[in-house]
Each structure stands twice: as C-alpha cells, then as structure tokens.
C-alpha cells in the first residue's frame, strides 16, 4: 500500500458541519491529500449535505490514490444523518482487528 511511507493523519471534525463549513472542510481535506487519513467524527452533532459531499468526494479521491481513508470514530448523530441521506459509510469504518 502506498500508505506505508506516510504517517497516518487524523482529522477531527467540528461539531457543526453545516453549509458554512463545507469550504473549510474541503480545504482541510485537500491539504491532507496523499496521506492516509483517519477521520474523527466523534464530536459531530450535525452534518449537512455539503459537508457529506466533501467527505464522500474525499473518500473517492483517496480510494483512487489507493490511500487509506477511514472514519476512526463516529458520533451517533453522524451515523444517523448518513443513514438518513443514504450515504453508506460502513465500508469506510475503521476495522478493529
């Protein structure tokens, strides 16, 4: 895996990921491009569609780069919202082995 050479980075998401947060999240995610990333969504209380879009676009790009992109920790609200909007994050969940 290409991730071998680079240290895994963590990205802690803000509690409120509403419409205003999308651009900032996009920038932060872009700055991590190329490195394996573990998203910490444990503090998320609310996530809007725009931020979900950014996260899913990120997941795809990381996949294309064959770099690991996982959700390390998720809050209940985060899970429920992704279920509500039909975004399946199960394959991206960090697997505890």
């Amino acid at each position: 895996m290409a991730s071998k050479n680079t240290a895994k980075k963590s990205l802690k998401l803000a509690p409120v990921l509403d419409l205003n947060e999308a651009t900032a999240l996009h920038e932060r995610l872009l700055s991590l491009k190329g490195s394996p990333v573990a998203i910490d969504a444990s503090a998320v209380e609310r996530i809007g569609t725009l931020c979900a879009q950014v996260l899913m676009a990120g997941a795809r790009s990381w996949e294309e780069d064959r770099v690991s992109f996982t959700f390390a920790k998720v809050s209940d609200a985060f899970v429920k919202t992704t279920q509500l909007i039909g975004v399946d994050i199960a394959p991206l969940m960090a697997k505890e082995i």
Partner: protein
Amino acid sequence: MDMNEIKEIFFQECEEQLAELESGLLRLNDGDRDPETVNAVFRAVHSIKGGAGAFGLDDLVSFAHVFETTLDCVRSNRLEPNQDVLKVMLKSADVLADLTNAARDGGSVDEARSRQLIKELEALANGELPQPAVSEPAAKPAPPAAPVAAPAPAPVVNEEGFQPVVFSFDDFEASEPPAIEPSTFEILFRPKSELYAKGNDATLLLRDLSRLGEMSIHCDMDELPALGSMNPEAAYFAWKISLKTDKGEEAIRSVFEFAEWDCELDVALAGGDHTGTGEEPPMQPVPFDLSLLDDDVPASSGAAEDEEQVVAQREARDDAVSAAATASNVLQMAQTARASAESNRSAAPTSSAAQAAAQQAASAATPTIRVDLDRVDRLINLVGELVINQAMLSQSVIENDTNGTSSINMGLEELQQLTREIQDSVMAIRAQPVKPVFQRMSRIVREIADMTGKSVRLVTEGENTEVDKTVIDKLAEPLTHMIRNAVDHGLETPEKRVAAGKNPEGTVRLTAKHRSGRIVIELADDGAGINREKVRQKAIDNDLIAADANLSDEEIDNLIFHAGFSTADKISDISGRGVGMDVVKRSIQALGGRINISSKPGQGSVFTMSLPLTLAVLDGMVVTVANQTLVVPLTAIVETLQPEASAIHSFGASQRLISIRNSFCPLVDVGRILNFRAIQANPVDGVALLVESEGGGQRALMVDAIQGQRQVVIKSLEANYTHVPGIAAATILGDGRVALILDVDAIVAASRGQTLKPEMSLAAAG
C-alpha cells in the same frame, strides 16, 4: 396584551364571521345546498357565541344561541332552508351584526326587532314554517306543530337561556379528506446549488420527509467529482426515495415547499410493490428513530461556542458567509418549528387534530397579520417623503453634476426604481377588496325592499376588485345613497313591473372592475329609467335651467346631480329629501372620481363611478401654464397635440374650437380659466391636451408646454391650505416647489359655464 385588546380582536373576528355568515346565507339563498356552506354559517354564529360568552355579552350570547339552534336544524336536515326561512335568517344576521356593534360601541339595538326574530327563529326550530308575506308571522300563537317532520322538538331555551346542544363533529369530519390508505411514493429529489446557496439543506428536507412514514433511500453520487475539482458549495448528491405514508402526496410536496424552485422533484405513486426489483438501485432503509437529529436548538447553542473556537482556529471568513449562516439558521428554526408542530398535531386526539387541521388548512392558504392602519399610513407618508426627497436629490445631482458621472446617475436610477417599487408595495398593503362594502349593500337592499314593499334582488360582481382602503371607506356612504335611490326611485312596484311585462322581482346589479388604472363601479337597475320630462320640468321649476334650454338626454339625466333636486313627489323616509345625488356626486368627486348616468326609459338606469385606485400618489403630466407648473392627472388625458393654425376656429365672442380628425372640440385655455393671465394665449404657441370629461365629452386643454410625466405624491390642499376651485390637490416637485394638480372636470365644467351663455344667447337671438 390586556383584556380590551383581546376584546378588540374578538370584535374584529366578529366582523369577519358576520361577513362569512352573510355571504353563506346569500349563497344558500341562491340555491347552494353544499353542506360545507351550512357548516360555515353555523360555525360563524357558533364562534361569535363562544367569544361573546367569554366576555359576558349576554344579549349577544342569547340571540346567537337561538340563531345557532335554528341553524343546527338546517344543518341536520330537519329544516329546509327555503326562501322564507332564509329571509328570517338574513334578518337575524343583520340583528346579530347590530348586537355586535352595540356590544362594541355601546349603541342601542331595536329590542322589539330582536325579540321578534328570536320568536321567529324559535318557531322555525320547532318545525313551524314562516307564513310568507305576513308581516308578523310569529306573533300569532303557534299552531300545534305537525308531528311529521321534527320528532318532538324539546323546548328551545331553558330558564338560563341555554339548552344542551347536540354538537357533533361528524360534519366537520365528513368534510375532511377521508383517511388515506398508506401508499408508497417514489420520489426523485435532485437539489440545485441554489438550494444550498439560499441556506437550505437537503438533509433537513430529508429528515422532514422521513417523518411522514417509512422511508428508504438511495443516494445517487454519480455526479460527485474528485475532491480536487469539486466546488464544496455546489450540489452533487441526488436521491431516489421510497416512502410509505398515509399522509398523501400533498404532505410530501409541502416538505419541499420552500425549496421547490431550487430542486428537481418528482413525486409519483409507486407501481405495485416497491421493494426493489433487480434494476432498482439498492435502497438503504432510514432508521425510524431520528430523534437525535431533532435537538437543533441545544445543538446549535452548544455549537455556537464550539464554532467560535473553530473560527478562531481557521482563517477569518468573509461576511457573506455569516449572512448565509443567519439565513440557514432562520430556515432551520422555521423547519424545526414546523416539524414540532406536526409531531404535536399527530400526538393530539384525532377529533381535535382533525379540527385543527381544518382550521390550519383554512388559514394556511394566506397567512395574515393585523396591523394598525395608522402604522401603514405613517409608512405611506414616509414613503411619499422618500419619493419627494429622491426626486429632489436627482434634480440637484443633475444640476450640479456637469460631468454626468455615470455611476452616480446609475445609482440614482436604481434608487428611483427602488423607491417606485417600495411605493407600489406599500400601496398594495392598503389595497383591499371592495367585498365588505358590497356586502353591506345587500343588507341595505333588504331593508329598503322591506320598507317599500318591493321585491329586489342584488347581484354583485367583481367583489374581489382591490382598491385603496381610504377609497373603500369613503365609498360606503355614496353607494348607500345610490342603492336607496335605485330601489326607491329606480325600481317600480311589483304590480307595475308585471304590467310592464317584467319580472316582478327587480334586479339591482353592483359591479366593480379595474379599467385603465382606475376602479369602475357600476350600479345598474332594471327599473323604469329616468323620467326625463319630469326631471326637465322640475329643473325648470327650480330655476336650474331656462324654460327653453336645449339639453341633450345626457344633460337632462345629469340634472339629478344638482343640489336641491328631488323628483320624488312625496318625500319618503328612504330617499327624496333632496340631499341625494348631489351629495353623492360631491363625495365621489372628493375622492378624485367621476360619476355618470345613462338611462333608458323602461329599461333602467346605470350609474358609473370611476375612482382612482389610490389617493396617495398620482401619475401626472407636468405642464407649464403662464410660468406656473401644474400637474394634469394622466388618467384624464386622451392625447396631446401641437395645434396648427389651420385647425383653430373661432366660435362666438371668445370661444375657439380645434378640429381634430374631422370633429370639433372646444379649446380651453387653462391659464385663462385659472386667471393666470388676462387674455387668451395663442393656441399655436402651446400644446393641447385632449381630455375626457365626466360627461364623456372631450375638451382640448391649452397649456404652454409639457415638462414630462412623473408620479407625484398627492398633498391635500384642503388639509394644508383651503379649497381652490379648479385645483384638486398639490404636490411637491423635485426642486422643492409646490405644483398644483388640476381638477380636470372642474376646469371643463368652468369652461362649459362660459360656453353655456353664448349658446343660450344664440338660441334667444335665433
């Protein structure tokens, strides 16, 4: 809010209920047998009774109670609402209105009348039919009720004035949409980027949607580009949703109410079993319990602090984003409120939920607020000042700005457009349908018809035509006069009508419509028409015209607008005190309106009133006359032309005519009429404004020059100075000077006064 304010609201609602009551009864009178109409009538009386009870208005309560009991008989089909029954009910509605007014303003009520009606209503409720055409049917002891129709009616009122009323919600429920069987809808929802730009969020919409029933969802991410090339604020996700709900399509669409323009939405009943066939995209069921996501309020307040930290951590954001944040919060609040209202409603017991839903459905169509008229007036005044100020600003910029800086000019133009829009919107606040005034007229017709023994039917059209509130308020009085006249003088007695081969029931038709920026109200009767011989003779007797005056039919008809003119041989209570039509004409003119009459012997008369839509602004043509700036109302002007010397003809001593397309039109020098100059100006040097006068005749008004067209704010001369003949009002121009607004009809009338004499002297000489 103190008790008096609540009471005031109650009375305002009473007015609405009374209007509802009357229009419902009139619909029934026209043969409408829709149970919902009967229900609406019943509800109106019931609400008045309920409110009156809360304020201890006993007279109102006891009358409303008897009325309601009788209406309940109609509602339960125990009483057929025929013409005679409805006559009593319409009278009762009038008394109910009187009682309401008395309770509010402390006036007195005709107690004998209300007692009489209570008896009549009780008789109806007891299954006794009113005896038609007898003045006091219920005064006689009631014959033992025929035991056929009503099964042994209980005494209507007990000692306290109350009786248990069987109150069922069956009818309300029946009018509800029947409970919808749960069905599955397939929804395609593709937001556009605008949806997010406006602070809406698809997540919230989906959450609301999921509350309607059992939902499964598939998110279509095909459009989602790579992270590097995506615009984080654009819409990429789209959804295919399957929703099993018993709320119906309407409820689904209402979720997207705020967003319908910003998304593609397709809602369709799923064909057959919805659970995925092979080609369907995999649907992900949405968990039923989403309560976690509901806690918007605490979440956002807690989040606010967190957000501050985040803000501190990252680069400063621009203002536009924070504005968007506010917008999104407001929208979220609105949606949360709506969601919680919905969940509360579903938790409430079914019967009251059904009722609440019915009420909500009724009120949801057009949410309204009550605003003091004073506040609106203040706003209108301020906007008027703004318009003047803006005009002054434009003018001084134009005067001082020799370079013609385009950005300033463009800014000013935008400002001008904005002020105009603000003004139009403010005017729209004051615009009201003429319906309430028209409704009042139906009562007047009923009463006069009763007093004169005539049978009259009032037909109204265009009740929803809107006009400024002031115009409406001032319309009631002249209209009342005219309706009285139409019934008292215009219509014949039933015997005479039958003899003339007409329907014994006379018709009075009241119509309102918009025509070229004015409201036109027509009052037509199918009576005998104006007796021109009689009018002419009366005018000669009263020295209004010379015995040998040669008057057109139109001029004779218009004589009835003269002061002190009444043709009724005997003065009746209703009309004919000689303060009729001249007062009407004056009040219409005071409103900036015109009134016209056209009459056909044997077929009836038509009164046509043309009124401005608003009394606050006016589109005018700014003209110069003898170095004075005047404003001519644009509505009066038919055309403008530059007279040629060959078109001007002299007539008599000082009169001149202008020939326009093979017809002659009197030329009126405005400067001369208003005494701005001693001698008439040369018409060739000026401009002629062809105006239409109230009689339909045309006059060419001579002015020196036209400055342009402008919307001006009307300032009353009477209120600020004193009445000036020939001048309707004043306005303030951009340069701060006062300009007078011409009263075109008065100018034409003054010019006629001048032409009348030479005509008569000519006739005498010939």
